[in-house]
């Protein structure tokens, strides 16, 4: 995804993308991040326990943990609410 996003939106995007195991390169590519910023965000999510790193076939992969569910569910509810709460746009 491209465009200006908040920190929380980027975390949400990384975590939903990593529901299936992903490499570092695929994460930064999918989330349109440079490697330095991507590393910072992934490190933060690893530190929080929302992401888990593991090795598979000599590749380092990342996967979202169950601990992230509270954040992901709250994010989804809040964003659905903020979208529906605003008046409708129509011509």
């Amino acid at each position, binding site marked *: 995804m491209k465009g200006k996003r*908040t920190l*929380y939106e980027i975390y949400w*995007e990384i975590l939903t993308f990593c529901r299936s195991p992903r490499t570092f390169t695929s994460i930064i590519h999918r989330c349109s991040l440079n490697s330095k910023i991507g590393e910072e965000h992934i490190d933060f999510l690893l530190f929080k326990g929302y992401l888990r790193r593991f090795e598979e076939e000599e590749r380092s992969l990342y996967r979202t943990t169950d601990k992230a569910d509270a954040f992901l569910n709250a994010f989804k509810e809040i964003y659905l609410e903020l979208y529906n709460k605003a008046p409708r*746009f129509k011509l």
Partner: protein
Amino acid sequence: METETLGRFNKEMSSFNTLILINIVGAALAMGFGVAVGANAMLTMIGERNILLPQVAMTELALVGFVFAIRWLVLSAQIFDSFDDIRDEFKNRSEKADGEAVTELIVQNMAFYRDNKSTIEKLKLGSRITGAFFLLLGSIVAFNLLSMGSIALLNLLTGTSGAILCVIIGIVGVYSPSFFEQYIKIWDHRLMYSAEAEKKLDRILEGE
């Protein structure tokens, strides 16, 4: 709730897309018409072999209108291009109407709005200025027609249809910013709410 939100998305995106298309058509008509009016006024002066003040005024106004119309067209095309990516994503995501897909669409639209807010503001101003110019041009064309007295039927028909077209472009230009204002107001409301929501998300991240 997801299906309802998706339906709402569909309607809002169609409305915004139609608004941009109206602006593109309006800008293209304004450009073409600016050239036509300017060339016509110049040809009249060449035919008369004299500098006629009303024709000079029309040529100048048409030229200014043409410049604004180009700007209006470029901005509309930029927005159309960016929004087209979102529409493609919507088509892909709407088949799978789960919460995550809908949330992603919301995040994507918010990113689009943050990226393009200043362009939408410029588009609003550009279309209003172009609209005002074409209303003025339409008035001048109508005034010239009325002040000419006797006039050939063909000239009367082309002049009248030109004035009507000017007024139509002018009305579209002057009126469409109100829809952009409505769009800006709605998305600003959503952004404001998202700033409040960040506090909640921060508390979750901090493990409270």
